[in-house]
């Protein structure tokens, strides 16, 4: 890792374990909070965040300050903050690393957000495979509570706020903000569209701010050092701040890196992540997590930032780079992604519930050497259908498929003409997909398309 890159969120990473509250405070931790509660008005905090142009790190890149402004000013009564730590998008693991580096940075960020929006209760929504991190957060919030940073009358002021952990039981769709609110409410996590935003009517019908954990972890820095400092961290013109990049796949040093917004993709892969492993050649990268398209080699010098990526027809997403080498079959990779999306869908709308399994079936055939030219047409026709789904889940699933059909059609055709996978992959299994949840007495038995015996 290069030393000249400012480490803001990962300041304490060198410890190699979660920083304690004292270690965090030794580096200026909770100073922002002390300088805020009882010193600044919530509106001033909000203005700092607006000026810093902090954009959501959960995928959509919506400006955090603008979201907070959505709370009706005249609302009296409870307001909630939901800390989105679902992080189920394949290729993404930054939130887990961040919690494990500096839990109190996260906690301070949450409290600052709650202060700015006037929330009295926070819900830390966390996925089941992060049970260890859930425990860590529970433990460290207790420490913060004992130090008077959480609970009633924080720092002796009128401000009261506490946070509790809500354990999820899985499924990617629970990361979607409105679905997450339903999940917390003990309802089926089908997203909600139309009607008031969650900042107006969210959890228990009260105004609710849902932010990604990393988004909130940026707040202490912004409040302490100011918006100008935050903007100066970025390399691109429109960007601000640093970002945690999850790098995985065929690279020499997979891992999570804190780098400025606006570094080039080439820089990330070939400088910071050590380039390709010995003997491997680069083919493509999915730059922003599973719901972003494959990026052709020609775009490697693109700046990793919301707007430049969008302009180039790419997506910044969660900045999770999955690198593929020349020996990896992209039909197979796309199929694996479709298996994921098909299994994790909430099942509400037709394009996603029926369309993704439809795409998956065609890809299975193509990968197994049974594809036809007609199947390519059918796949292409399915793209606009997935795009018009109820929520952003299916459009996200469409992205890798679109990337495959746009940039790697040769590879697809090779499967059809050779009647087998040119990379030598065996025909895909039609195999059980984690539906161990199904009771025996009813339901699709055996599992309708997976033929899973459980």
């Amino acid at each position, binding site marked *: 890792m290069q030393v000249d890159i400012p480490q803001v969120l990962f300041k304490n990473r060198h410890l190699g374990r979660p920083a304690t509250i004292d270690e965090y405070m030794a580096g200026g931790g909770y100073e922002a909070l002390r300088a805020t509660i009882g010193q600044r008005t919530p509106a001033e905090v909000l203005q700092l965040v607006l000026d810093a142009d902090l954009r959501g790190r959960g995928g959509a890149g919506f400006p955090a300050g603008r979201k907070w402004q959505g709370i009706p000013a005249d609302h009296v009564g409870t307001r909630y903050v939901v800390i989105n730590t679902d*992080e*189920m*998008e*394949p*290729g*993404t*693991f930054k939130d*887990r690393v961040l919690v494990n580096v500096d839990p109190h940075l996260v906690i301070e960020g949450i409290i600052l957000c709650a202060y700015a929006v006037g929330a009295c209760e926070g819900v830390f929504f966390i*996925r089941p*495979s*992060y*049970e*260890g991190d*859930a425990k860590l957060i529970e433990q460290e919030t207790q420490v913060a509570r004992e130090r008077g940073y959480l609970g009633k009358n924080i720092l002796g002021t009128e401000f009261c706020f506490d946070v*509790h952990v*809500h*354990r*999820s*039981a*899985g*499924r990617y769709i629970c990361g979607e903000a409105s679905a997450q609110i339903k*999940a*917390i*409410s*003990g*309802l*089926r996590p089908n997203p909600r569209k139309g009607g008031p935003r969650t900042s107006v009517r969210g959890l*228990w019908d009260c105004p609710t701010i849902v932010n990604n954990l990393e988004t909130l972890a940026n707040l202490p820095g912004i409040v302490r050092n100011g918006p100008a400092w935050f903007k100066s961290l970025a390399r691109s013109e429109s960007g601000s701040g640093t970002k945690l990049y*999850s*790098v*995985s*796949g065929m690279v020499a040093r*997979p*891992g*999570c890196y804190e780098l400025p917004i606006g570094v080039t993709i080439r820089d990330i892969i070939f400088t910071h992540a050590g380039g390709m492993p010995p003997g491997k050649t680069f083919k493509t990268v*999915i730059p922003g997590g*599973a719901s972003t398209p494959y990026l052709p080699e020609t775009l490697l010098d693109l700046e990793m930032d919301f707007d430049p990526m969008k302009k180039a027809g790419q997506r910044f997403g969660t900045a999770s780079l*999955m690198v593929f080498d020349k020996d*990896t079959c992209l039909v197979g*990779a796309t199929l*694996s*992604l479709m*298996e*994921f999306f098909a*299994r*994790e869908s*909430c099942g509400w709308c037709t394009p996603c519930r029926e369309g993704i399994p439809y795409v998956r079936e065609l890809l299975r055939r193509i990968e197994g050497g049974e594809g036809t030219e007609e199947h390519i047409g059918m796949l292409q026709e399915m793209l606009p259908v997935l795009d018009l789904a109820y929520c952003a889940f299916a459009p996200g699933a469409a992205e890798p498929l679109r990337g495959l059909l746009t940039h790697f059609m040769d590879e697809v055709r090779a499967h059809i003409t050779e009647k087998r996978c040119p990379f030598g992959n065996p025909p895909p299994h039609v*195999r*059980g*997909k*984690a*539906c*161990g*949840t*199904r*009771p025996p007495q009813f*339901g699709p038995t055996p599992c309708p398309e997976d033929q*899973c*015996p*459980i």
Partner: protein
Amino acid sequence: MSPLPPELSTELHRLVTAVDNPREAAVDVMYALQHHYGYLCDEAMHRAAEVLGMTTLELESLATFYDYLYRRPVGRYVIHVCDSVVCWMFHQDSIFDYLCRTLGVPPGGTTEDGLFTVLPAACVGNCHNAPTMLINGRFYDRLTPEAVDAVIAELRAGTEEPVRCK
């Protein structure tokens, strides 16, 4: 239905009263009962319905939605083998098949001694250590057949206390 152990009853009561609305505790209560019964049997569902004031159908709506709530018997160790794209790239398939072969179970099956269930799982958030699997809350990184053998042997030997997902 046999009575629940008093500690569990207390714990369920605590879970329900810790939140503003009992519904929020639905998943936690089901986790706790799953831990007690080994999986969410019908009796567990009826218990959860009683505790939460919800109908069994409402709970079934949730339990069958999520993949970390098991409505069918599972082994003491549920092995969630990640089959998402990064792990796939590292031949997760062969890890998965290897597990099934060594344990002698079909995908989703449970070993006869009731120790292991093998389930394919969505990305578990450990992609930089692919291929990976998750057993009762613990990650196992950069798997190879030898590493899998070692893990299974270790678990079999009972050196590892079961740390179930709470």
